[in-house]
């Protein structure tokens, strides 16, 4: 039976729902804060954030700058992508270098070589120096157990610390961004997105990414069950053999501790299928630093990490 009257199906699909929620968050921050900044590394989550921000303020420009905390352990193609993306949007990019801190002795390289935890101090200094009061991060609650408990608006004290036991309740879509001088708010517009949502959205919106997110041949060696790329900051130990494999990256971070996964996914549609069928979490598969302990991420977040 068909009815002659026009019936509208009035349900947004889940990507439209997530997009609208994120755009609402960007606009709330732009309206209520004086000096927001968006953390941008060229990784896929930050790329999606910038895409959403551009949509939120269209036909105007993105009304805040970008900030990259550069570990110095970068994949060169990601840095090149970052600079292209910044040029295309015309937004100002601030860069804080971990290497500067190591060169002048404020930070020392760790024995395990990873620089992800060393990003915290340059990040907090950049926030203080620029007096940023809202900092957009690409963190998603599906990534990790401590992140699952974080609010969309997450208050940080003057030390940048997250107090998971004393978070503000977050009701409806009424975000409370009140903060005192010296405090700031981390804002996570992708809180409710999963890795698969991000990839489906990248496919739907035809967003370009650094090429290493897709399968390519690369010289790698295996360490702790992960495939690490051969490069200036990631050299094999004596027992480790370098082989060429077809791999892609699920996350992009410090090259010395970000693992590649073997993959046949040559394009975004292959990746969507691969992520939908994966049996390993994004971080479990690719981040050595998150394996340190059950509470590795929680500990870093309490100290002011992303």
């Amino acid at each position, binding site marked *: 039976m068909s009815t002659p009257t026009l019936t509208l199906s009035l349900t947004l699909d889940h990507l439209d729902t997530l997009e609208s929620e994120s755009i609402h968050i960007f606009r709330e921050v732009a*309206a209520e804060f004086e000096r927001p900044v968006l953390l941008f590394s060229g990784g896929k989550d930050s790329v999606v954030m910038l895409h959403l921000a551009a949509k939120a303020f269209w036909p105007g420009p993105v009304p805040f700058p970008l900030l990259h905390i550069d570990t110095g352990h970068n994949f060169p193609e990601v840095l090149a992508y970052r600079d292209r993306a910044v040029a295309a949007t015309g937004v100002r990019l601030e860069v804080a270098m971990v290497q500067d801190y190591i060169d002048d002795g404020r930070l020392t390289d760790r024995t395990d070589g990873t620089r992800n935890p060393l990003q915290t101090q340059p990040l907090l200094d950049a926030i203080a120096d620029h007096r940023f009061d809202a900092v957009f991060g690409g963190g998603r609650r599906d990534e990790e157990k401590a992140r699952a408990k974080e609010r969309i608006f997450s208050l940080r004290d003057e030390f940048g610390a997250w107090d998971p036991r004393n978070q503000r309740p977050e009701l409806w879509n009424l975000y409370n961004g009140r903060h005192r001088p010296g405090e700031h708010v981390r804002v996570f517009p992708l809180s409710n997105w999963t890795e698969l949502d991000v990839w489906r959205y990248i496919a739907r919106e035809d967003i370009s990414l650094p090429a290493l997110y897709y399968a390519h041949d690369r010289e790698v060696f295996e360490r702790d069950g992960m495939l690490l790329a051969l490069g200036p900051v990631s050299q094999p130990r004596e027992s480790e053999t370098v082989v060429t494999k077809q791999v892609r990256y699920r996350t992009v971070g410090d090259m010395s501790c970000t693992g590649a996964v073997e993959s046949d996914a040559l394009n975004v549609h292959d990746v969507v299928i691969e992520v939908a069928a994966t049996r390993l979490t994004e971080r479990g598969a690719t981040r050595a630093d998150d394996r340190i302990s059950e509470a590795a991420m929680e500990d870093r977040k309490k100290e002011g990490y992303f």
Partner: protein
Amino acid sequence: MPTTATTATTATTATTATTTPTSTPTTRHGHPTLLRLATAGSVDDGKSTLVGRLLHDSKSVLADQLDALERVSRERGLAHADLALLTDGLRAEREQGITIDVAYRYFATADRSFILADCPGHVQYTRNTVTGASTADAVVLLVDARKGVLEQTRRHLAVAALLRVPHVIVAVNKIDLVDFDEDVYAQVASDLGAVATDLGLPDLRTVPVSALNGDNVVDRSSRTDWYAGPTLLEILENLPVADDPGQEQFRFPVQLTLRPQEAARTAAHREYRGYAGQIASGIVRVGDEVVVLPGGRRTTIAGIDTADGELTHAFAPRSVSLRLTDDIDVARGDLIAAASCAPEPTRDLLATVCWLSDVPLSKCGRVLLKHTTRTTRAIISAVNGILDLDAVKIVPAQDLVLNDIGRLRIRTADPIAAEPYARHRRTGAFLLIDPQSGQTLAAGMLEDPLAGEGDHADQWDI
């Protein structure tokens, strides 16, 4: 030949996205929808286990998470992997074996993605349940089949009723521990039905489960052959999503004005002036007559814009930018509403609030009230009483402390386009904020300003 849909099979799980071409431009048929859930339950009802089971049996737990789970369970001397450990995120929670804070979980089936706010049962249960329920399309409440309906069960249901959660599903858990006895389940289900009627809950469903063993969570149990209904996941997959915008009145809180001038992305947009926001309820069409509140100026919708292009109409909860026919003064905090049924702005509010702060109301003199996109100064003019969740009635009170639910009179500095929460979940809700510390003090739900107080001074009109 277009296929004819059979009438009663809404539960088909075909994943194909393009079977029949859609006749309307408003929806992408076959794309998954999003459903927001909140859990509730008392201590030891097995809530973490149920959530773990839901994630595990819907294949949302991945191999490395399972490995970690089995390793930790072994280290603690447990015979089986403890699914509850999947949901305890913080160090203190794992060390103390408790859940402290609302945690958000994500899982998906072919047709639907789920966001699950996992609300702890014991510590600050009202605060957490109110938080989780505020955004929920459905609440999943656990009841221990051996204990039946407890005081706390009634309280959780009262909170769901108060927050106007459209659907409540009660998982009658530990059905294995009552030998899968149909009579026990029937008694609990009947008691729950009576409570639901008392509270005026619009939709309450029950399902007998064993979270520990997985009976009727995702897969049908062979041990409850007397139960012919759907499993918990089947219920969740087939609930209608949220509210039907077609039945609602159009409401649009203005977040900001988009007026790029010379900074516009294209030269054609230098003169652009649009009002950005997320549709809170209802549908808007180009040409609709609207009123801008609290000012009261009437105009019509000249255009509905997104970065992807113009729309002829849009509905909640889409984020858009509206252009108006007349050049009138519109700013953040204003509400654009359907002209035919707009609320009357007022500075005197009657509201039910859940007190969320350790600082009692009596220590908070002047507060900030955040309603939609407007924040204004406010004072509490009177405490009319406090809700006794067990008796579901108002008792006299002078003060509100953490987890109390009370009824207040509030006076605001600016007029508010106030609407009863019962009919407008987005534009009937507000926060009270401490202007000094910035802490969120209370979650508020506006009552019908016309209803007055006299006729239900001690009744709780849920």
